[in-house]
């Protein structure tokens, strides 16, 4: 087994890892913003309901949540027992991704889990904006929408940059959990070689993570610098 074949196999797995990472972000960022508005709602039932949801999602291991999402359709009805399996070969997931159904289930679980974490970061950022900023917008005749997007949100972005970079880097590595329901991401791709008595691909896979996290760190440093032109 040559270095090249291992590299090729790991690259394929890393592609799945990256896709999982990107899709999770795309869905969880807006969803997190939405959830944060619910956890700040003036309506007590809505607020309490979503706080409980966030508590559950943040309080239960992500791996357990993967299992729950994967097995829930089958627990609800017999017809659902192979719900994710039927999606295995659906639309584009058969392009290089085995077990497309598992992959989709992972995206759902990850997006929801990370949305809850992000919602708490957003909430902290939004609640940290001084009330005077909002009042200044109000007395200038701005609509609530304008106040949110032109004043609050712009400042929230700077405030949450550091905690967000932390969470996003954690997400890169959490994608390795997806293999428990059969997604062949990079660690799984490396693990397959252990059956051929090859251990070093496992260590090799770590290099991919390091490289990617390094790039993300540079990106966040750049963003932080970009936002350093003002102080909040």
């Amino acid at each position, binding site marked *: 087994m040559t270095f090249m074949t291992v590299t090729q196999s790991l690259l394929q797995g890393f592609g799945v890892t990256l896709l999982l990472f990107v899709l999770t972000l795309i869905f969880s960022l807006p969803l997190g913003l939405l959830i944060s508005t619910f956890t700040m709602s003036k309506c007590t039932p809505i607020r309490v309901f979503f706080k409980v949801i966030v508590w559950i999602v943040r309080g239960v291991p992500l791996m357990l949540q993967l299992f729950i999402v994967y097995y829930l359709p089958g627990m609800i009805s017999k017809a659902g027992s192979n719900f994710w399996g039927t999606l295995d070969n659906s639309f584009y997931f058969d392009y290089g991704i085995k077990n497309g159904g598992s992959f989709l289930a992972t995206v759902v679980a990850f997006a929801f889990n990370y949305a809850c974490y992000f919602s708490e970061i957003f909430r902290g950022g939004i609640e940290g904006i001084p009330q005077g900023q909002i009042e200044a917008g109000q*007395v200038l*005749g701005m609509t609530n929408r304008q106040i949110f997007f032109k004043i609050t949100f712009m400042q929230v972005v700077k405030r949450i940059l550091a905690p967000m970079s932390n969470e996003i880097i954690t997400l890169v590595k959490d994608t390795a959990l997806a293999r428990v329901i059969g997604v062949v991401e990079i660690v799984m791709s490396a693990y397959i070689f252990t059956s051929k008595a090859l251990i070093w691909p496992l260590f090799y896979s770590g290099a991919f993570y390091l490289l990617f996290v390094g790039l993300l760190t540079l990106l966040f440093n750049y963003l932080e610098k970009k936002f350093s032109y*003002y102080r909040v």
Partner: protein
Amino acid sequence: MAFFTLRNVNKSFGSFKALNDVSFSAEKGEVVSIIGSSGSGKTTLLRCINFLESVDSGEFFLDGETMFSGPIDKLTEDEKRAKRLSIGLVFQSFNLFPHYSILRNVTLAPELLIRESLKRKGKKKDNPKIYDGIVEYYFQGVGVDEKKINEIIQKKGAELLTKVGLESKINVYPHQLSGGQQQRAAIARAIALNPSLLCFDEPTSALDPELTGEVLRVIKALKSKDRAMIIVTHEMEFAKSVSDKVVFMSQGEIVEAGTPQEIFEDPKTTALKNFLSATKKKEGDEDVRREERPD
């Protein structure tokens, strides 16, 4: 009816009565100073006038229009906005937007309003009450040209900043300015919508003593026959020199009101007498402290 009229305003926070049957009025061009010790309801009164708090009962008229009659909760957002536009407020803590340059701080609200007004013009959601005044103020004599909106608004913004002496600072960010400069920028922002009533909530209380002068001079220069001003202040000398009318509040009530001469030279109530002698003593202390400063 007077240009500005407040009638029987009441406001409680829980069981605490913050405003008790407050009434006063002012004519166009007049400056009214509100004085009184901390917790006497001055700031609450100003916040009610600016729709930041709702009154429990009472009426407020400005320029012949009913601003509110009773609690403001029943007004729609659009109604509240429309009414707010004729009132400007300068905060004690400036509240400039830290992520925008000084010029952008001044131009943001007018630009949003003007763009919104052009978009809504002739449509169902058109609300001429909100927009016509501001469009006229910015485009008087030029005609609205979509392409020149930015240019015209920025020119006006720069003009307003020149008026408060910040022409060399238009592109810097709030944190790069001194407190006095920040407050002057906030004043320029407050007059960018050309309000007919301009309110100041202790505009110099957050400033170092040596910076209050520049802000007070700017406020004085804003006195205009086109608008009324209400100033909540602890600067007695300033209140004396700038005001046409002084209102003394204590425990949520207006205890005395009159010309500066009447209030400062001939106080009738013991509450006002005590307040004035207390502030005189404090100002004396401050003078001593200022002299002791090493710098």
